[in-house]
Every structure is written in structure tokens, then in C-alpha cells.
């Protein structure tokens, strides 16, 4: 086939190495538009993998297309914050203008329009991806223009540049965002200390993981450092988790956009401590537009001797490579991320063994959040004692919040740990707030009476999301949006999460349509208990959190939807006839069953 030379070029660039399959698939798709059966067979033969494994990986990721996807693939970010900014109306209008049904490719193969999970632009939505390029601040006016460009088949590269501009919106800086380190300064300090002393400083600085779980970074690095590599190619690895998929979180995007050197430097310090020569950044597919700038930043560091062989003349060899994800929230879980780095579906592994002993390519691997790695530079430069002097007893340092939703100044806010929810609300200009979703759907929903609580591992731990809802918002709809998110993102490996997230979503839809009863509310509690105890990873364990929190704190939002407080049949007789009506082309009164209430 004519496409094969182009596929072969991609395969050659990746040494026909199957563990690089996700990168191979992405690059091939960027050239060919989609991954046809023949393409997958050719790739499988090229890397020497069973074809079923290649199609198994390709079909796992939302951004890979194993069916033709249309010349223009439009995906609307569907986080609750995008909804609050009116994305539903905009998407409906777009579909109408293009004569399209969501999710279907137009008859002429020109365009498809659908939703996607949060693209990390919550402070500048409604956001979308067109052919996987991020677009922010969508308006009705832009919509008309965009539809015109699609109809005229103007290449996305020629669309107005301002549509693609992504703002940092940094509103409050503290020690990290306000750092005054020169590139190489922190790394030099680390190399002068030596790996063990550097590790001791990280421990003295009480640095904890910024991805939400708060595991001690020093302990993680120490376990990785002490673990022994195995097999023919023993090695240690550093992985930077930039798969920022938790809806409402976008601080890593800003760190990688404007503080990339600090992140790379943190990875290098981690590499020096654990004894790694290679670091990998797993960048979420939604941030594809950051790939080229990050590659340039890496090249600049290599040119100035901060990456590569014998860094700063201290005999330390280290380099960094960027891998892109392809639309799978679960890959934010560290062992799923490693599976993805190895070219497989992002399915969380059975643990133990943990990645620190058997991670990437079965070698000792430390997986750290972008912000954690950046913060490690401050400790290298200023010492652990200085760092531990910020924040609280158990939460040293600062935390970056991604503030979005109902407030005047959404964006990036850095605070010392221990700040109250109320303080952040005041600073971002939020009024009449009824709730804040801390740390995204898998986090905690706090209500007005809890605004005095502090954000720190001692009280409210967070990965960074801070979504504000004022008193005009319907907290049931917030929880329903999150239920849809989890059902879409469940990897499907374990039963409680695969089926449970869909059952929860269906029940929330049922309540939303006015067919719910108190029985369904009890069912939601029951599913929460089953999923929390039995799920394979954090996704399933926390998937019911938003439902559980809003049920406990905003019960009236549910109850006012219940038609009766005792019994309501789930089955809608009239809706059941819709297929028959469609087949017979009828929609007259006699083709409908009358609702008792209306009769």
C-alpha cells in the first residue's frame, strides 16, 4: 500500500520497538488521519507483536481512531466548568450548522463533532480540540467562522492563531512560581551535595507527592535508589507524570509552559538521586501543542550541558524523552502510565510489586508529579530545612491550585499549605459560593459550612483542582457530569468499576429524567460501598465520591427530582415505543401512550 513507506519511516525512527507502540500509533495517525486495519497489521508485523495486541492498544485510547474519523475531528471539552460556560449550546449549534449528529462522521467524510473529557482549559473555556489542537474561549461568533472554515476545508494550521492561544493566568505566586533560580542552579547544588545528601535534604524538606496521594517523595526516591535493576538491561528510570487528567486541574500545563526548565531540572535531580540515566515525561495527549516547545527546551538544555553526558562536568549522565498520551484518564495512575509507556493499554498493574522496584521495563522507577519534581529544585537550591519552614507540620511547602468555575479571576494560585478554602474563594473573587470541588471528581466536595477547612494533607488533600459553584448551580448536575466522566474513563479491567460506573451513570440519568425514587438513592449508596472496597485502583475506589458527597451535603438537589418519594417505575412505556414510531414514520397522538399525569 502507498501508506507503507510513511509507516515504515515512523517504525524506523522508533527502532521497530514495540514498547514504543503508543508513540508509533500517534505519529502514524497524525500522518494518515486514522489507523486502518491494514495499517495496524503493518505496524504489528513491523514491531513483531501479535496483531491482536496492537489493535488491543489502539482501541484502548480515546484519541486513536480505528475507523475513519473525518478530515476535521472536533471534540468539545465536557467538564462541568465547560458546561457552566455554555459548551452544550455551542456544540448543539455547531451540529445544527453542519447537519450532524454528535459522534457521527458526516456523510461526505468531512467532519465529526463529539465531546471529550476535560482538556485542562477550565479557566479559559469553553474549550475544544480540533484535530487534537487545543482551542480556548469558544464563542457563538467564533463558531460561525469555524464552521465556515471547515466547510471551505481550510487547514487547521491556517485558522486564526488567537484561537489557539492558551493563557497561563497566574494570579498568585509563592516560593515555587516566584522562584528566581537560573537554569542549572538547583542541579549544580544537587550534584555538589552528592546523591545521598541530596536525598537526605528531600527528606528533611518533608516533600510529599503533589498528585494528591501525598506519598513521601524522599521515601519513594530512597526505595527506588535501593532497588536493584534486573535482566539484560538493568537500569533505573525517572518518570514525570504530566498526564494531568483530573477534571478541573491545569497547573501542570502552566508549569510545563512557563517553568519547563524547573521540571526538567527536578527530573534530573531525581535521576541523580535514584541512579537513573533516563527520564520520561508522560504528557497527556490534550497538551499535544506543548510537544514542540518542550522539545526545544530540552534541546536548549542539552546545548548548555544540563542534559546529556557528564552534566556540569560532574560525571552525571542523564537525558529526557517525551511520550504523549492519547486520551485516557486512567493513565494518570502510575502503573497504568507505565503500561502505556510500554506500548500497552493503560491498565493499572497488580501491586505489589510497586514501580519503585519493578516499574518501566520491569526496572526500578520513580514516578513523580510535575509539581513535585519542580518543588524538589527549591530544596536542592535552598535546603530541606528552609523548605520545611513553609506550609504546615505535615504538609511542607506550597501547593498550586487550578481555580475555575464561578469566580471573577480563574487561573493559577500558589499558596503555602494550610490555606483555608475561604481565603482562596476571597482571592479569586468568588461570591455566593455554595460548594467547591477540591481535587476534582475523585476528590471532595465541600459546602459553605466547611469553607473554614484548610487545604493540606492534614485536612483537605488535593491534586490542585478547585472548582467553584455559586448558589445558582445545581449540584446534582455537577455530580451527574462526574458520573458520566468516570463511566467514560473506567479502563474496564475490574468488574466493580467497569460495570459499577455505568450503573451509577444510568441511575443518575434516570433520576435526572424524573424516573428516580428513594430506592435509587439507596442503590447509589450500595454501589458506592461495593466499588470502594473491591475496585482494582483509585479510579473505581473514588468514582462514587462526587455522588456520595453531594448526596450527603446537597440531598434536596436529588430529592426535588424524585417524582414520588416512594415508588416510580424505571420503565417509560411511551419511550419504549419510539423505535416503532421511527420505523413506521408516525408521530401522531395515537402513536403515543398517554402519561397518566397528563391525561
Amino acid at each position: 500500500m502507498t501508506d507503507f513507506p510513511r509507516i515504515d519511516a515512523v517504525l524506523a525512527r522508533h527502532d521497530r520497538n514495540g514498547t514504543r507502540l503508543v508513540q508509533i500509533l500517534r505519529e502514524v495517525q497524525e500522518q494518515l488521519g486514522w489507523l486502518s486495519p491494514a495499517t495496524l497489521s503493518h505496524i504489528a508485523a513491523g514491531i513483531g507483536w501479535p496483531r491482536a495486541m496492537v489493535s488491543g492498544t489502539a482501541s484502548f485510547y480515546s484519541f486513536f481512531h480505528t475507523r475513519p474519523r473525518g478530515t476535521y475531528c472536533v471534540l468539545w471539552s465536557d467538564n462541568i466548568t465547560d458546561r457552566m460556560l455554555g459548551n452544550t449550546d455551542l456544540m448543539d449549534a455547531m451540529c445544527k450548522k453542519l447537519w450532524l449528529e454528535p459522534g457521527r462522521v458526516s456523510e461526505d467524510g468531512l467532519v465529526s463533532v463529539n465531546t471529550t473529557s476535560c482538556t485542562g482549559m477550565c479557566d479559559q473555556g469553553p474549550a475544544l480540540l480540533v484535530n487534537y489542537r487545543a482551542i480556548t474561549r469558544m464563542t457563538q461568533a467564533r463558531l460561525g467562522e469555524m464552521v465556515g472554515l471547515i466547510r471551505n476545508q481550510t487547514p487547521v494550521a491556517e485558522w486564526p492563531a488567537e484561537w489557539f492561544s492558551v493563557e497561563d493566568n497566574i494570579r498568585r505566586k509563592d516560593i515555587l512560581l516566584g522562584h528566581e533560580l537560573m537554569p542549572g542552579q538547583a542541579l549544580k547544588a544537587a550534584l555538589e551535595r552528592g546523591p545521598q545528601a541530596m536525598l537526605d535534604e528531600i527528606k528533611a524538606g518533608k516533600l510529599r507527592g503533589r498528585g494528591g496521594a501525598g506519598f513521601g517523595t524522599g521515601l519513594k526516591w530512597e526505595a527506588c535508589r535501593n532497588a536493584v535493576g534486573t535482566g539484560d538491561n538493568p537500569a533505573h528510570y525517572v518518570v514525570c507524570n504530566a498526564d494531568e487528567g483530573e477534571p478541573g486541574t491545569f497547573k501542570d500545563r502552566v508549569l510545563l509552559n512557563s517553568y519547563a526548565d524547573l521540571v526538567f531540572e527536578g527530573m534530573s535531580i531525581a535521576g541523580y538521586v535514584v541512579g537513573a540515566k533516563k527520564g520520561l515525561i508522560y504528557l497527556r495527549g490534550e497538551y499535544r501543542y506543548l510537544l514542540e516547545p518542550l522539545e526545544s527546551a530540552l534541546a536548549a538544555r542539552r546545548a548548555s550541558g544540563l542534559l546529556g553526558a557528564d552534566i556540569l562536568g560532574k560525571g552525571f549522565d542523564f537525558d529526557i524523552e517525551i511520550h504523549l498520551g492519547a486520551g485516557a484518564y486512567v493513565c494518570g495512575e502510575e502503573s497504568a502510565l507505565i503500561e502505556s509507556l510500554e506500548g500497552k493499554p493503560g491498565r493499572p498493574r497488580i501491586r505489589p510489586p510497586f514501580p519503585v522496584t519493578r516499574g518501566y521495563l520491569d526496572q526500578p522507577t520513580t514516578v513523580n508529579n510535575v509539581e513535585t519534581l519542580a518543588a524538589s529544585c527549591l530544596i536542592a537550591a535552598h535546603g530541606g530545612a528552609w523548605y520545611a519552614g513553609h506550609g504546615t507540620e505535615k504538609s511542607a511547602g506550597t501547593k498550586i491550585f487550578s481555580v475555575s468555575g464561578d469566580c471573577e479571576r480563574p487561573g493559577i494560585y500558589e499558596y503555602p499549605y494550610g490555606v483555608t478554602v475561604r481565603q482562596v474563594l476571597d482571592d479569586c473573587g468568588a461570591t455566593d459560593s455554595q460548594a467547591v470541588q477540591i481535587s476534582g471528581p475523585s476528590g471532595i466536595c465541600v459546602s459553605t459550612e466547611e469553607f473554614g477547612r484548610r487545604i493540606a494533607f492534614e485536612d483537605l488533600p488535593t491534586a490542585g483542582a478547585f472548582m467553584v459553584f455559586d448558589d445558582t448551580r445545581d449540584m446534582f448536575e455537577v455530580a451527574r457530569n462526574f458520573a458520566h466522566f468516570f463511566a467514560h474513563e473506567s479502563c474496564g479491567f475490574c468488574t466493580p468499576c467497569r460495570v459499577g460506573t455505568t450503573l451509577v451513570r444510568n441511575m443518575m440519568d434516570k433520576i435526572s429524567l424524573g424516573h428516580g425514587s428513594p430506592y435509587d438513592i439507596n442503590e447509589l449508596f450500595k454501589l458506592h460501598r461495593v466499588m470502594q472496597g473491591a475496585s482494582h485502583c483509585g479510579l473505581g475506589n473514588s468514582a462514587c465520591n462526587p455522588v456520595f458527597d453531594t448526596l450527603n451535603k446537597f440531598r434536596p438537589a436529588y430529592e426535588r427530582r424524585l417524582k414520588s418519594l416512594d415508588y416510580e417505575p424505571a420503565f417509560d412505556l411511551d419511550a419504549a415505543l419510539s423505535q416503532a414510531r421511527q420505523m413506521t414514520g408516525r408521530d401522531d397522538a395515537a402513536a403515543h401512550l398517554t402519561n397518566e399525569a397528563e391525561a
Partner: protein
Amino acid sequence: MSNELTFQLDGEDISFTPGQTIMQAAKAAGVYIPHLCWHPDFPAHGSCKLCTVKVNGRFGSSCTMEAQAGMSVENRTAELDDKRRTLLQMFFVEGNHFCPSCEKSGNCTLQATAYELKMMSPHFDMFYPDRPVDASHPDILLDFNRCIMCSLCVTASREVDGKNVFAMGGRGILGRRIHINSESGKLADTDFAVTDRAASICPVGVILVKRKGFAVPIGERQYDKTPINEQVKEPTA
């Protein structure tokens, strides 16, 4: 033996050897822990979650957790069997399971486990997924309507048959399914053979041998006479 390693399973002492999982030790002792995706001949998959137990008060999968001396494990408690019943109901509503017309009835682990746990109804609304069957192979029929995603066929084909006929792919409730190792996606276009270990590993009625239907009448099948919890130990010759 005084230095024998033991843990408590529902109050009963179970001895184990270092490295054994709770499931392996229980099986060796003849104690039944409900499970679907686990098979003694293969590494644990850990997906069905039916073997979830409570170890020192915390939930865990007994097929993946190593036994430790002195640990206290709850297995057949009302709380855990309740959860297991819900998990079984999840299996029944996510697929299309019609036991009365299924060739596997009486030999099916899912059915036998549902009887064991006294599952009386599917409880939730059925999903009625659209899962095409594959009858392309001359000797084997694949009916994915009954698939429980245990991956045993994937593992058996890879590790015993050395063929990789199957792989688990896709994501979530709609996407996750068995992928067949051919461009057409048809079993006939693979090197699968009826003599493969993978052809006889399926715990439910997905992989069926053609022209062998109902060779043993219903009523005389594996789980018809003896419940699954009494068939823990391999029959000794």
C-alpha cells in the same frame, strides 16, 4: 510441625508456604473462596474481584495477596457475600446470559457461583450489549455475549499454546473486549486449533466446540450434582 506457617481464614487455621497467595493456600486446604478469573494453572489476573476478602479489616483480592503468618482473613461473611452477589449481578446485566439455552449450563463457573451465592435475580437493569458471535472457525464457536473478561483464553493461548490468538483490548464498558489475532478479526483467519489449551479454558460459554453440543445431558454436568464450593480440591486419581 511446630514451625508451620498459618493464617486464620474465617477462624480456621490454614497453613501455607512462603510466596503462596491466600487463594492458593485456601485451595490447597480445600477451602472455597468464590472466584471467576483465577485458575490454579496461571498467574492471577485479579479482575473479577469475586475473591475479595477482608484481611485484618481491609479489603483485598485473595488471588493476588500473599499469605502472611498470623493474618486474619474474613471470607464467607454476610458482608462479603453481599458484595459478591452484587458483582455477580453486574456480570449478568453487562452481558447477555440466557442460561436455559446455553450449552455451558451446568458446566459454567458463573452460573455455579451465582447458585452458590444465592443470587436470585439480576437486580439491575440489563444492558443488552450488541456482541456479535464468531462462527467462522470450522471447529469452534465464539459467543462473546457471555464473556466475563477473565482473560484466561488470552493467557492460555500465550503461555501454553504459544500462539497469542487472543488479546484483551478496548476500554470501559463499551470498548473492552477480546481481540482476535487476525486483520479480519475472525477466528478462522488465525492458527487456533480445537486441541489448544485455550479452547477448553473458558469458565463460561464463550468458546464452544462445534458438533459437541449437549454431549452430556443437562442434569448430569459438573455443577449439577455437587455445588461449586464442594469441588475445591482437584479430584485425586
